């Protein structure tokens, strides 16, 4: 058994490397291709996206990692020449930032409620939250639509922000984190004369700092890439986020699409690289629906 191990490990390493290549390839391709000139893009992918603009078109598609000539042409035309993409990017920010901040804030308070006071009623409510969290969009979008219509906020940002604020995902995850805070810590604070609110803000929240961060990243990534909600709730193209708009870039501008997708990836990429440890911890802790 022991003797066979080095060979086994080499095989595993090789397999991991192959998987890693497959997993990374689309991301890397998006980024490198965003630095290609439109003519090079057309030459490589013209066959697929059937552009009408002339020039050399390769008979077969060329999946190329390294551009012949690195150019910022696409970024220039996307970000400087027309304000459209920046506007859509800003739309995304206006939608996602309030959702992340408010969802986490409301969830922190609620999680404290679920942690400090227990009982059959509260367990039932918590279980209901779990069910709600697991409901696919297909189910929750119709209620969302009806409320938005009734409140007169259909086709405004609020039709997405308000339900997003109350999404039960953060409540679920934060409750699981908070229940791990040693009870003695809370008891000690109470003996020192701290009220519930003080215990919450001075003891609980500082203990949960990394959890709050990891949940914020998860929520951000989820909403940053949303497509379903804006498609149904925001018919007005001007206020749609870049995640939806990116897909509408017409097929003559593939290079531009790569560049704008790269720009759109930057916030999640930075969060991901900066907070990967927290992110992994956050995911790892969501591991079981119970308890």
């Amino acid at each position: 058994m022991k003797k066979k191990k080095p060979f086994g490990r080499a095989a595993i390493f090789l397999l991991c490397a192959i998987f890693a290549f497959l997993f990374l390839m689309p991301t890397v391709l998006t980024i490198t291709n965003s630095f290609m000139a439109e003519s090079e893009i057309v030459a490589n992918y013209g066959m697929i996206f059937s552009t009408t603009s002339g020039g050399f078109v390769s008979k077969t598609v060329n999946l190329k990692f390294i551009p012949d000539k690195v150019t910022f042409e696409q970024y220039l035309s996307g970000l400087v020449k027309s304000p459209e993409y920046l506007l859509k990017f800003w739309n995304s920010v206006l939608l996602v930032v309030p959702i992340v901040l408010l969802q986490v804030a409301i969830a922190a308070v609620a999680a404290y409620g679920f942690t400090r006071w227990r009982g059959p009623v509260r367990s039932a409510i918590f279980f209901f939250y779990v069910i709600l969290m697991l409901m696919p969009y297909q189910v929750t979008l119709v209620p969302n639509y009806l409320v938005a219509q009734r409140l007169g906020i259909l086709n405004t940002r609020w039709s997405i922000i308000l339900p997003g604020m109350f999404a039960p995902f953060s409540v679920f995850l934060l409750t699981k984190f908070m229940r791990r805070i040693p009870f003695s810590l809370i008891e000690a604070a109470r003996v020192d004369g701290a009220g519930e609110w003080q215990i919450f803000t001075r003891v609980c929240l500082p203990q949960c700092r990394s959890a709050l961060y990891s949940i914020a990243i998860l929520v951000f990534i989820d909403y940053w890439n949303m497509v379903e909600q804006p498609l149904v709730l925001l018919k007005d193209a001007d206020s749609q986020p870049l995640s939806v708009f990116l897909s509408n870039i017409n097929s003559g501008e593939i290079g531009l699409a790569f560049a704008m997708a790269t720009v759109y990836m930057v916030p999640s990429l930075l969060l991901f690289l900066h907070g990967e440890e927290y992110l992994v911890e956050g995911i790892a802790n969501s591991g079981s629906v119970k308890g």
Partner: protein
Amino acid sequence: MKKRGDKLNKKLLDQLHGLCYLAPSILGVSVFFIVPFGVVVYYSMIDGVGSHNFVLFDNFIKLFQNSAFRLAARNTATFSIMAVPLAVVLAVVLALMLEARIPLKSQFRTFFLSPIMVPVASIVLIWQVLFNMNGTVNEFLSVFGADKIDWLQSQYAQIVVLLLFLWKNLGYNMILFMAALANIPKELLEVADVEGASEAYKFFHIKLRYLSPTVLFVTILSLINSFKIFREVYLLAGAYPYETLYTLQHFMNNTFDSLDYQKLSAAAVVMAIVMVILIRWLFKAEDWFGKDVEG
């Protein structure tokens, strides 16, 4: 007597205080999810938003007779049945692979997780480049003499989407399994080693037991995510894709556009019921499997 009353009052006050913390969330959830869902249930049983005649199950019967709904339900079910077990098994394999002492372990973890942050639109572009009639995959296969096919317009369309699904979700599932593997008591595995147990024995008789709650959680999660694949399919193939790619979310979206509330509500109710049954069933399974390991 008075003292007891005080105590009771205090307890009540304490409970009310606790409720204050839950209030914002419960209020929001009620307004945005529960009450409107009640309305959806009501809509699913009346004959029209204008007339409000109670028709009980007529809308459901009509829904089940609707060929588009049946197609969408069948496709969604087929896809989930293929995708969920694969997403679970392959994630366990990845997690086990990263348990081995190999170099670059944490880098591999990062790489496997990275797809979660890639915008949908760019994935879609890449997938088109790969699976188009003149795409890379066909180029590659033609070396072996295979005929060119338009993958997204063929019987393999669901497999193309399946690959996308796995690419996107395996990393997240893998992290969940890695965490579960790390929680297995080391002494147990050491004892097994001393006793000369094979890797396979250790996996099936020890590790899998401890992984079972996570297996069920990842199953639920992957099930939900398999419903979300509409996002990618919609961007790849539009509102009316190849037949096998027409999912429930396509049906809902297209029904939204025609504002047929009865059909829409009935479909949402059916889906909610199916989900609750599935989740309850999986929870029961978790209880059953997890009963002899302290989770």
